[in-house]
């Protein structure tokens, strides 16, 4: 278990989900004649002018509003994503400039499949926890790619979560401890210059998702001397609707504990944004004194687990920016033709 020397917590959080959705059924009509089960009901789709950077900016602005913090006070703006618009040129620089954190700020782009955002969170805990800085922002954002017809196409979606780490005494939720667990497990990857990732189908399950999450979660619970029942809420990485519910059950968490942060049935897998947005949605409803257990997952593979305790600051903070529900309820369903057009899947010659 890792704990910072100086107690830290979240002083702000913000989420972003695009307004567009495509129903999983619409995708299934095209590839399977509508036969078979569906991993989610719908997934979010970025609009034609949206990408990881634009979504990160809006989530970051929401987090700053909740923190009631001048952007200049951020010492770091770190953006985790597997869909950075540039291969070489930091997303973080554009985000930092847009929110007003530049130029005296550390920025970096993180990549670890779906847990790039939580890598940034752990680094932000360290930066503030060491006393090097008072505030650091960690963002997870993705416009996830998927090959037409692949299983991923039903779930690979778009969204972002932004968290600002600051001193625990100012926090709306303290970050009490974390663990990170990593193994070389090639369940999903995308080679350089390839447009779509590939995955190992059932191999993405037991040796990958379930093993990493269970390992990290159990280790943190053990080190803290706690059980799942000691937490009010839990959030797990959510590549589909089933996996987070299954892993929660195996670990001993109830459906009620994960309900507020389970967004994947409505918006799919927002990759680096997924666990962070789930945490944000949970913070939207959590009361002072309640506790949250979060475990992220990134293919390749690894998991980070965190234990949080909500403070009284949450009540003043959450109303300062749109709730997750505001983004979830603005939904415009599009057909596959628009989806293909916007996602660059039409051959334009």
């Amino acid at each position, binding site marked *: 278990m890792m704990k910072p020397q100086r107690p830290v917590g979240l002083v702000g959080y913000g989420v972003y989900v695009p307004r567009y959705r495509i129903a999983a059924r619409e995708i299934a009509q095209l590839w399977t004649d509508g036969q078979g089960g569906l991993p989610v009901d719908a997934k979010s789709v970025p609009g034609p*002018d949206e*990408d990881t*950077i*634009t979504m990160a900016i809006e989530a970051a602005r929401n987090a700053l509003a909740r923190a*009631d913090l001048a952007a200049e006070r951020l010492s770091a703006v770190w953006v985790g994503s597997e869909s950075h618009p540039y291969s070489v040129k930091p997303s973080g620089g554009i985000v930092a*400039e847009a929110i007003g954190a530049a130029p005296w700020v550390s920025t970096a782009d993180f990549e670890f499949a779906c847990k790039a955002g939580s890598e940034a969170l752990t680094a932000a805990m360290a930066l503030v926890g060491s006393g090097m800085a008072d505030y650091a922002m960690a963002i997870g954002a993705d416009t996830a790619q998927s090959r037409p017809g692949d299983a991923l196409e039903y779930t690979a979606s778009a969204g972002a979560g932004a968290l600002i780490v600051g001193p625990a005494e100012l926090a709306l939720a303290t970050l009490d401890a974390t663990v990170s667990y990593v193994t070389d497990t090639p369940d999903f990857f995308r080679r350089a210059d390839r447009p779509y990732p590939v995955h190992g189908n059932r191999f993405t399950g037991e040796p990958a998702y379930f093993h990493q999450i269970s390992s990290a979660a159990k280790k943190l619970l053990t080190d803290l001397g706690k059980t799942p029942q000691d937490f009010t809420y839990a959030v797990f990485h959510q590549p589909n609707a089933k996996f987070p519910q299954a892993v929660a059950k195996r670990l001993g968490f109830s459906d009620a504990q994960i309900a507020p942060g389970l967004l994947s049935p409505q918006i799919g897998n927002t990759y680096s944004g997924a666990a962070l947005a789930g945490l944000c949605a949970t913070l939207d409803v959590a009361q002072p004194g309640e506790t949250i257990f979060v475990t992220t997952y990134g293919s390749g593979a690894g998991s980070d687990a965190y234990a949080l305790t909500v403070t009284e600051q949450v009540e003043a903070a959450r*109303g300062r*920016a749109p709730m997750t529900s505001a983004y979830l309820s603005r939904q415009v369903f599009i057909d596959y033709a628009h989806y293909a057009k916007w996602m660059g899947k039409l051959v334009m010659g």
Partner: protein
Amino acid sequence: MEVARHWRQRATRYRLEGQRHVRTGEVRFPARPLTVGEQDGDWEPLRLSGRGEIYSFSVIRQAPDGFESMTPYPVALVRLEEGPLVAAQLTDCVEADLAIGLPVEMVTRQLLDTGADNLLVYGYKFRPRLVATTERL
């Protein structure tokens, strides 16, 4: 490749940064060079709130090169709450959603993709307010 031309606009385009006159309080957007008779220090940078309302709007169906992939797209003159008018695209809406006087808010979006070996240009657009009564400090 065209980089400097977009780079020098970053405060304007990313942060909606304009100017306020230090004595009269007049706000203008975008920031402008000093004109004859003005002195250094007359105007200070000011980040605008991004809140305003639609002064007028149009949906463009015959687009210039570079904007084909977004066509049709709505544009507007927006009256910002600090006073200036700004011309911009609207996003996350269709024509039927729009009306003169509709409250809108600034978001940062891709303005233009200038090519695979060139910049993605980001900047301000406006959308109907996500939450009509969000308290913002």
